């Protein structure tokens, strides 16, 4: 679990940060993605604006925890980016997250850098 969790009785920490870099949009996610925080993730992606022709790179290096609610929200957001004409790739996917992606058969949907 990431260093962002400072005490046992706290809620999930989560942050979404998007930076434009030429034709790329770098999305840095941090914290835990579960049913509680996933609406914030969905909101973050919805707020990216026009992604047509853009390459959205999602950095998951600082994500300490993901469960199926988090996976579903992430997958739905990335599909929406694609439907709007953007390309998607994932970066710094942790071992545990790769495991969940592969167990659930979702890994084949994304290119992982």
């Amino acid at each position, binding site marked *: 679990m990431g260093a962002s969790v400072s005490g046992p009785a706290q809620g999930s920490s989560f942050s979404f940060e998007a930076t434009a870099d030429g034709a790329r949009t770098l999305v840095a996610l941090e914290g835990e993605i579960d049913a509680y925080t996933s609406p914030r993730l969905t909101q973050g992606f919805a707020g990216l604006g026009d992604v047509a022709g853009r390459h959205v790179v999602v950095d998951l290096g600082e994500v300490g925890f993901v469960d199926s609610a988090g996976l579903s929200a992430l997958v739905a957001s990335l599909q929406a980016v694609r439907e709007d004409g953007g390309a998607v790739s994932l970066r710094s996917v942790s071992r545990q997250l790769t495991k969940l992606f592969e*167990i659930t058969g979702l890994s084949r949907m994304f290119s992982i850098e």
Partner: protein
Amino acid sequence: MRGRRPRLDVADRGHWSAAALDAAADGMLAIDERGRISCANAAAGRLLERRVDELVGADAHEALPVLGDDGELHPRWRSPVLAGLQPEAAPCTAQQLILRPGGPALGVELFTAPVRDGRRAVGALISFRPATSPGGHDYGDEVLRITERERAQREFLQQLQEAVRPREPVVDHVDLGVHYLPADPNAPSGGDLYDWQLLPDGDLHIVVVDVIGSGVSATKDALAVVHAVRVLALEGCPIDQLVARTDTLLGGGHPGLVATLLIARYTPSTGRMMVAGGGHPPMLVVSADGEVREVVAPGIAVGWPGAGSFEVAEIVLDRCELALFYTDGLVEARRDILAGLSDLKAAVAETATYPARHLPRVLVERALEGANRRDDTLALVLRRRAAPAGPPGRLLDRFDHRFSPQLAAVPVARHLFDEWLRQQGVEDVDREDLLVVVSELCTNAVRSAGGKRSSLHLRARPDADALVIEVDDDGAGFDVALPSVDEVPPVEQTSGRGLFIVQSLVDQFDVSHAETGTTIRCTKRHLFATSAAWAPR
């Protein structure tokens, strides 16, 4: 293994279909459930200006990029080419514009029809012809007939495959998993086959066979080998003689049969495994932290002069170590066999902690990713499960907390549980899995709860070397059928993945309903050191 005996019998159903498809003037493609082209006829290659062998294995959406009315390419999720894979798809015909690399766009009449197994789309058939071509008879009907025939064939083949697959033995201290992918998605099974049997003395007998040839005749040969080995093993034939005796037994009756094989005899209580082979690639042993070693069991394949094992390899699997058996389809898909073996080692090192029932599928998916040809591919995994060594740890109080049934309680419960697991000394790999399990169970409970305060009740306790986790809620339970843990939820499915993950990560999963609510109980075994559970070597 590639066929050495040419089979050119046109009356054979497979050859007839292939010949008929190649004779057609329309481009015809079969795609699998992921949209990958599994079969393409000659006309498809001509119309798309691609080689047919290039098309096979390619993604249909990429091979047939369709331009929308706005002049932009359709995104994958709206691609008319993949329309047949949609959940409620019906056969349909439409005029479309296909972009060809380096050539002018091609206006086509595109027909797609789903191939279903029950209600699930397992693939689709696509036919297309230039929109300007003089209208012949309606090929749509022809494709519909083929679709229907495919469905019937698939059903028959599935039954055949079920009959060929040995039932998985349930043995304590052993997790097993297997995945098989035939070279030809339309063939029932090929020349790769496995066997796993519990012998009367409690040992496990495991065999992986790779027969030269393809299709039903190869399956027949592979079955003959597997059965011969099983009967000989049950009769007490020493493992070092199994390959030679099998060869003798099958000698006269099966002219032309050549089979490489690996045979293992495994003692679950001690982790001891003896391995004998006949011309088969090495077995791999992988530790939980990803260290991989080859176990070579040299010998000559059944059906070749001098068939037999040269020596028997003997190893002891440590706690959480796994043995990986496979056929050469797993290491030859993309590259030569040595490079393939090193790729496989890297893949299995990364995935060493995956649940045994999913690991073989993941390895096959990784090996075939980007591959443009595909042989029969089989992967079989055995993992030793045992409690950690050493004296029993300090057992703490039970975990017992109540929460309000709100999503905000899920991370709170998870973090408390994390602390508790750390205090119990649970290893990181197991702890990470268990946190996902608890997160899923609590989310599930919140969603189905009636809403009374403190009605979400999470409990956990060690039971010998196992951990038992229970979650209560005051809801009436969920009416969705529990997902099958062996079948990956379809990508487009939005719910039900949580319980699939839970069942994948624990050893036992029960749901019980009472008037007061619903309880889910999960058990994960072999987590804690207990003096009784550890049998020293």
